[in-house]
């Protein structure tokens, strides 16, 4: 009996000690979105994905789940399974992108590896992708950027790796890919480069145009889902909307009195700024204007944030044991950054009604959308649940690791 009470704190300490995922990169000064070991919950144009790919820590394989009927579609072994792996998925062609240190593996629908010549030497940090154009861009911690173009059959038709230095002497700071296939990056010195990915792939060098909006160094950029020419950007003291085609500034918000708590491009791009320790402000774009929404609610640390402007819902993962610290200049959008003391919450922005206030399982891997919570338990034999927030229903699947553990 006494032993049990001694064991509990040891378990908690172990979970805390092991709680941080390896994807602990800030999502500031990256191209695209930071990587996770779970495929994104939203596809192009913010559509919900019913496929979920996850790198399972127990079997060290990529599991592909169908969330509609909560079944395991397939499971793929990886190269160097001892490393951390990060995933991306193209639903239309059923293509899996598997990234690990210095390696990109592309698996076709038969889960056979597709050959490619893309080589990079650093640790992958973020990706930007356009499934309909077959474009996949990888950015690593050495600031290398790799571009892959897939053909209609899922084969790699073109690829290019370039360093961050343009011939004008400026280097990449942040960026993203819009739906037109333009890779828009901010440069040191405050300029913005609009890179033509098709020409870059054809000529094997950066082909771009450049302009300077005079707002200082831009450390975060996100295209608006409903208008590919408009990017929401953040510089040191301002949040702006910029049209990259007309190179004009559309709207600006002074955030010099606020501290940044979170940067997110999930569903609708948004920022979470803090006016003071307990007053978070949501900043987003709507109808080509920058909007703010003050929560007036005390929160712990927001680890993951999803904004659905059309539904008027803000869904997030809060760590109730951690408090926001203005001095902490490290923004990550990762629900698994701390795997203890987590809650999933959904706030109706119109009247601040909490539509969801659910404890998340300690130690589990989570994927959150504004409709569901997928939980992968740290169960050796395999155990996952999908909770539907709107229907209050739960589906589960177990034992999917068993056949692989038996081998």
């Amino acid at each position, binding site marked *: 009996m006494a032993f049990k009470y001694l064991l509990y704190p040891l378990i908690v300490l172990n979970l805390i000690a092991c709680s941080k995922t390896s994807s602990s990169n800030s999502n500031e000064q990256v191209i695209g979105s930071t990587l996770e070991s779970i495929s994104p919950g939203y596809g192009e144009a913010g559509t919900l994905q019913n496929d979920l790919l996850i790198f399972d820590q127990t079997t060290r394989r990529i599991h592909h789940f169908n969330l509609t009927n909560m079944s395991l579609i397939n499971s793929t072994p990886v190269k160097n399974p001892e490393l951390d792996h990060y995933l991306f998925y193209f639903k239309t062609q059923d293509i899996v992108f598997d990234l690990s240190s210095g390696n990109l593996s592309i698996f076709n629908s038969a889960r056979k590896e597709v050959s490619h010549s893309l080589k990079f030497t650093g640790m992958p940090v973020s990706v930007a992708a356009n499934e309909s154009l077959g474009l996949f861009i990888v950015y690593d911690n050495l600031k290398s950027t790799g571009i892959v173009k897939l053909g209609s059959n899922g084969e790699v038709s073109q690829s290019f790796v370039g360093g961050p230095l343009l011939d004008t002497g400026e280097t990449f700071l942040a960026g993203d890919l819009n739906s037109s296939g333009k890779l828009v990056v901010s440069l040191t010195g405050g300029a913005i480069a609009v890179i033509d990915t098709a020409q870059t792939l054809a000529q094997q060098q950066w082909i771009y145009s450049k302009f300077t909006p005079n707002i200082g160094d831009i450390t975060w950029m996100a295209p608006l889902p409903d208008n590919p020419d408009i990017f929401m950007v953040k510089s040191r003291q301002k949040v702006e909307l910029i049209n990259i085609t007309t190179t004009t500034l559309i709207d600006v918000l002074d955030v010099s009195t606020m501290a940044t708590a979170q940067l997110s491009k999930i569903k609708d791009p948004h920022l979470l700024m803090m006016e003071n320790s307990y007053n978070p402000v949501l900043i987003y774009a709507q109808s080509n204007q920058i909007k703010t929404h003050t929560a007036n609610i005390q929160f712990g640390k927001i680890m993951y944030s999803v904004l659905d402007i059309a539904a008027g819902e803000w869904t997030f993962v809060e760590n109730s044991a951690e408090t926001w610290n203005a001095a902490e200049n490290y923004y990550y959008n990762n629900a698994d950054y701390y795997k203890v003391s987590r809650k999933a919450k959904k706030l109706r922005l119109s009247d601040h009604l909490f539509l969801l206030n659910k404890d998340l399982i300690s130690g589990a891997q989570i994927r959150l959308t504004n409709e569901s919570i997928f939980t992968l338990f*740290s169960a050796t*034999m395999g*155990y996952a649940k999908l909770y539907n927030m709107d229907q209050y229903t739960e589906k589960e699947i177990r034992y999917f690791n068993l056949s692989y553990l*038996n081998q």
Partner: protein
Amino acid sequence: MTKNKSVFTRMLYLKILVSIIMLFLVYVDCLASTFVGNGGNVGDVEIQVSFHMLADIVNQLNTDEHSDFLLETLCTCPEDLKNHPMCEPLINLGKEETLFCRSFLQQNMKNIQGILRRSAKMEVHWTGSDILVKDHSYLRAADAVINWQNQVLAIDQNRFVSMRASERLFLISHEIMHFLNDSQGQKLSDIGPIGPFEGNQGGRNFINALAASLVVKSIDQGVLDSYFTVLNRSRSASRYWFDLSLGSVSTNASQNSKFTQAYIADSEIGFHFQLNPRFALGVNYRSSEETAKSVSRLWIKEKLKAYQLVLGYRFFPSDDVLTRLGQSHFLLSAGIEKLQATQNLSDSFSTLTENIAVISPLIGTRYYLASDNGLWFFAGAALLFHNYKYKYNLDQYSLPAVEVKYPGQQYRFEIGVSYGF
């Protein structure tokens, strides 16, 4: 293998085993045996020891440097044995009777030696029923009777084995005396007078005195004590055996699945019954519970129960029943085992359980090493022809079934203790 075929196979094994048992039950002679006291029967050791004791004391009386003194004190009891039951035939002898007894023994010591040397060819017939001898016109019960012409000694087995060593020696000595001739050249008889031993029981009293004298000398000279270890040694002639063992089964299965266990420790309790000195019928119960960690945070627990029915055959590397090696023996066995097993796979969130039951043949061997007072130590090995698998059905989650296979033979090694009685 289809279900019908596996049922057929199991029934076939059972029929073969029952046939073998029935065949040898026909030859089971529960109590009577014509083996020449070779140790396969109850009492064989006792009778051999008795003959050896008699030979030892006779040899001592013939060859010992103190034999003159020993011979001069025949047919009397030493002071410290005056109350011994064996002194009863001697205590009340008159002076003439004592001298007659002594003189007869002194004259016939070498003859007795010769008879004992030839006794190796004597047949011992054990009987389970009363031996009746004709004494004049009536029958009386006897513990033994000898036919010196046919060299056959018939002994009541239960009575003989239940006697003390001194009583057995007395009985054998008495019967051996019947091989000696009196002064008229006639074999000594229990009936009628002889020398100073008068009356109808004179012969019996005389032979009893002769026998008692040799027994008393054996006690006095420590001959009886020298066979204490041999008499206390555990006997292979025991009919009923209880066995306890600890074993380890090498499953030969680990390469097929990470959920199998390469070695399973178990314990076994069993009972076997000697149908005759060679063949035995046994039943055993074996059980095991093992919990192992397969990969991080996955526990595999297996519980096994097995019931065996075996037929055994004993093989004695040495035939000297008076030695430890002579009692020790190999028991070769063949039979069937019904194995029931449960496997649990569990992690922190879920548990899966599967059960199996198989009936398979087995063969094995044990070496029983005799200790004392019915106790034995043994070591053995067995080959179990089990071929089974746990099949985890995961249809509920649209996943393929997971099979955990234990194919082929399993080897079991054991050490144990046994009690035979």
